[in-house]
């Protein structure tokens, strides 16, 4: 247990200025910053480190804490995203509560963005340090919150991603509730013929997965069902599953995996779509499965409705799906003429590039067109302006395949609101961080995988499903979760009038209005609170305190910003 500093104890602040090799020291003067820090009130120790995060840097900080009885530590270095845990742990090891540590970013926020302006950058670094020291004076000790985790998972969506996630978790001994809104499990793959690049039969593959899920003793399947209600927080979610709109059941789970998949864009009658001579990619898959192509001259038009102003993203899988289908057509009927009209080709990866070569070798013709001059349909012909040849070409076509992008599913807005997880501008689910937390949502205990996330191939969907279950398992297997103790709390019960404003604003349902001896009062559920602070910024009674971002801390920082 780290030492708590007595409120009456005098402030002893230590400031460490990191050179980060030349990342900081190359663009501003850390010595001047350190000297300045020494002049700030209650700063009793200052040191420069070549690398504060290195073993020697951490040791220097720890020794300074012990030798100088420091009770606040300010490190002016890089970003809390990567190094806050390092310095907090260093403080804790030296006997100081980790929340007495304050990070000042003089690299990303200063040296890196003011290269060639050493004087101004040094001046700004001093401002930032002064602000950090001002806030550090008001820091308070906090203890981590540890909560139990229900070893069960809710998987939403019974396609390849959801099935993979459910099996992976169940095989680790976790109870799984799998919710699918359609009558049957299997999702999109039931409508696909063969998968690239392995060329295996999609329906056989998914049928094996479905069988394994349905026969698994630890997986309970809810078809024709949706999730209608959700309460709780990581480790203790209570979800209401509604089957056929009538039967409702509450399940208790520790984590939730969102695997709701995507749909094929339906554009209606563009390019003369009729479902017979002009069809969609999925309709082509069905024809190939049935062996009824019914055409000798096939033209595939790619990026129909994709990478256009109203839908800027690339759907990623359509290039390979059409190339795979072109090869299947040529293998069955080498005399067939297949043209692929494309804007760009997305054939990333060794296997995919090999398939593209194979398609070219087998005689599939690729013609590049531009968004400004899309192909034109004529009776039995397609006219297209080739950007490479610089002229218009006419192609005989007795079957035209429109390759439209994957779009997000119906009902994602409702699910997003229910789970309190965000969607991006294209209505795909948005992860917590594209690089650092690609399968997590910002809400702890909820994960995303597969095409609910963005257009992905089957192998990518499986990788994501396994990744998401691995992330979820860290909590499910430990059965305990440590939550960052940055949560709001009722500062003074007497101040609270029980108006319920905070509870109505809380995006995480982390505030409940409860009857107490003193009347109705707000009660915060610390583990459910994500620390956004909206309640604190709104309470007209100032009865709410946002821990670690208190009014005192923020005001001290704001005032210090302009007091230099």
């Amino acid at each position, binding site marked *: 247990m780290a030492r708590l500093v007595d409120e009456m104890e005098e402030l002893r602040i230590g400031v460490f200025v990191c050179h980060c090799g030349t990342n900081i020291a190359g663009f501003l003067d850390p010595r001047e910053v350190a000297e300045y820090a020494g002049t700030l009130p209650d700063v009793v120790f200052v040191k420069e480190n070549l690398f504060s995060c290195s073993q020697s840097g951490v040791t220097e900080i720890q020794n300074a804490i012990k030798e100088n009885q420091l009770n606040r530590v300010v490190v002016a270095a890089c970003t809390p995203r990567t190094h806050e845990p390092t310095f907090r742990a260093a403080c804790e090891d030296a006997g100081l509560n980790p929340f007495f540590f304050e990070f000042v970013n003089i690299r990303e926020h200063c040296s890196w963005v003011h290269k060639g302006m050493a004087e101004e950058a040094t001046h700004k670094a001093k401002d930032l340090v002064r602000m950090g020291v001002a806030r550090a004076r008001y820091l308070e000790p906090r203890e981590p919150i540890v909560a139990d985790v229900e070893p069960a998972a809710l998987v939403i969506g019974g396609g390849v991603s959801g099935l993979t996630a459910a099996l992976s978790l169940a095989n680790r001994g976790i109870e799984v509730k799998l919710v699918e809104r359609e009558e049957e499990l299997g999702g999109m793959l039931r409508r696909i013929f063969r998968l690239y690049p392995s060329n295996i039969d999609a329906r056989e593959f998914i049928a094996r997965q479905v069988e394994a899920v349905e026969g698994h003793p630890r997986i309970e399947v809810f078809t024709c069902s949706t999730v209608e209600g959700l309460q709780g927080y990581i480790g203790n979610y209570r979800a209401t599953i509604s089957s056929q709109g009538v039967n409702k059941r509450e399940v208790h789970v520790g984590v939730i995996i969102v695997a709701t998949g995507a749909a094929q864009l339906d554009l209606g009658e563009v390019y003369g779509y009729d479902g017979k001579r002009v069809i969609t990619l999925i309709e082509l898959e069905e024809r190939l499965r049935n062996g009824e192509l019914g055409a000798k001259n096939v033209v595939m038009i790619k990026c129909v409705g994709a990478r256009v102003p109203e839908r800027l993203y690339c759907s990623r899988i359509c290039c390979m799906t059409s190339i795979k289908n072109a090869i299947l057509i040529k293998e069955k009927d080498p005399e067939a003429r297949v043209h692929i009209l494309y804007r760009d080709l997305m054939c990333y990866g060794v296997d995919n590039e090999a398939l593209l070569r194979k398609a070219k070798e087998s005689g599939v013709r690729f013609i590049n067109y531009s968004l400004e001059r899309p192909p034109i349909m004529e009776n039995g012909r397609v006219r297209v302006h080739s950007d490479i040849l610089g002229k218009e070409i006419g192609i005989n076509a007795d079957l035209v395949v429109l390759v439209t992008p994957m779009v997000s599913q119906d009902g994602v807005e409702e699910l997003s609101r229910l789970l309190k997880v965000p969607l991006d*501008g294209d209505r795909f689910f948005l992860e917590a961080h594209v690089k650092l937390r690609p399968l997590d949502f910002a809400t702890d205990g909820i994960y995303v995988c597969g095409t609910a996330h963005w257009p992905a191939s089957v192998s990518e969907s499986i990788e994501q499903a396994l990744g998401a279950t691995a992330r979820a398992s860290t909590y499910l297997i430990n059965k305990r979760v440590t939550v960052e103790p940055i949560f709001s709390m009722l500062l003074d019960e007497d101040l609270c009038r029980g108006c319920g404003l905070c509870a109505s604003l809380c995006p995480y349902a982390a505030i409940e209005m409860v009857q107490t001896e003193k009347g109705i009062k707000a009660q915060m559920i610390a583990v459910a609170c994500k620390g956004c*602070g909206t309640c604190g910024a709104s309470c*007209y009674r100032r009865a709410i305190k946002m821990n670690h971002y208190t009014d005192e801390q923020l005001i001290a920082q*704001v*005032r210090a910003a*302009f007091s230099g």
Partner: protein
Amino acid sequence: MCSGRVDPTIILEAFLSKADGVFVGACRRGECHYVTGNLQAEGKVNLTKKVLSYIGLHPERLVMEWMSSGEGGRFVECVTSFQEEIRKLGPLGKGEGIGTEELQLKLTAAQRVMEGKKLRWVVSKRLEFKEKGNLYGEVFTEHEISRLFDEVVMDELTLQEILLRLRMEPLSAKTLSGMINIAPSRILRHLADMKRMGLVSVSTEDDGRSPVWKAV
């Protein structure tokens, strides 16, 4: 920290500390890391801009921009145009032709207004009023809410400013009217309300004709 944590009183603290401009960066609409915090911030920032313009400051000194944490380029563009805009406006107060003391008084009044129950309640309920309606099921448009804010802001600001000025010295309604630039009849209405609330009283030092008011 979510933009939802941005309390208007802290924005005004920055102006009181002589900031020439305040920039609030929030997640894009519908992409908030904390679900709806950015929309709460939007309401609070817009209201604060209104308050700034009522006290005679350029509302452009307060800027809110939408961006994702992955959009470094956009952040740079926004901050660059922000600082160019603020440079054009000049130092706080000077750019508006308001003296230092007057500025402190007006900003203090503004901070008290944003501290007050009425505005904190209404601005936080704004989204609910727009989507679900109030207690009686009346749904408000953005325009109606904006008008509601106008009324409340003006009333509250006048009240706070009267109170601050009367704390310094007892004054007549007519003198207050000249200082605050509001018709004497309206000042008088405020004074009467404030008297009922026990905030002001008629001073004994009156000259017999027009009463002089003081803060209680």
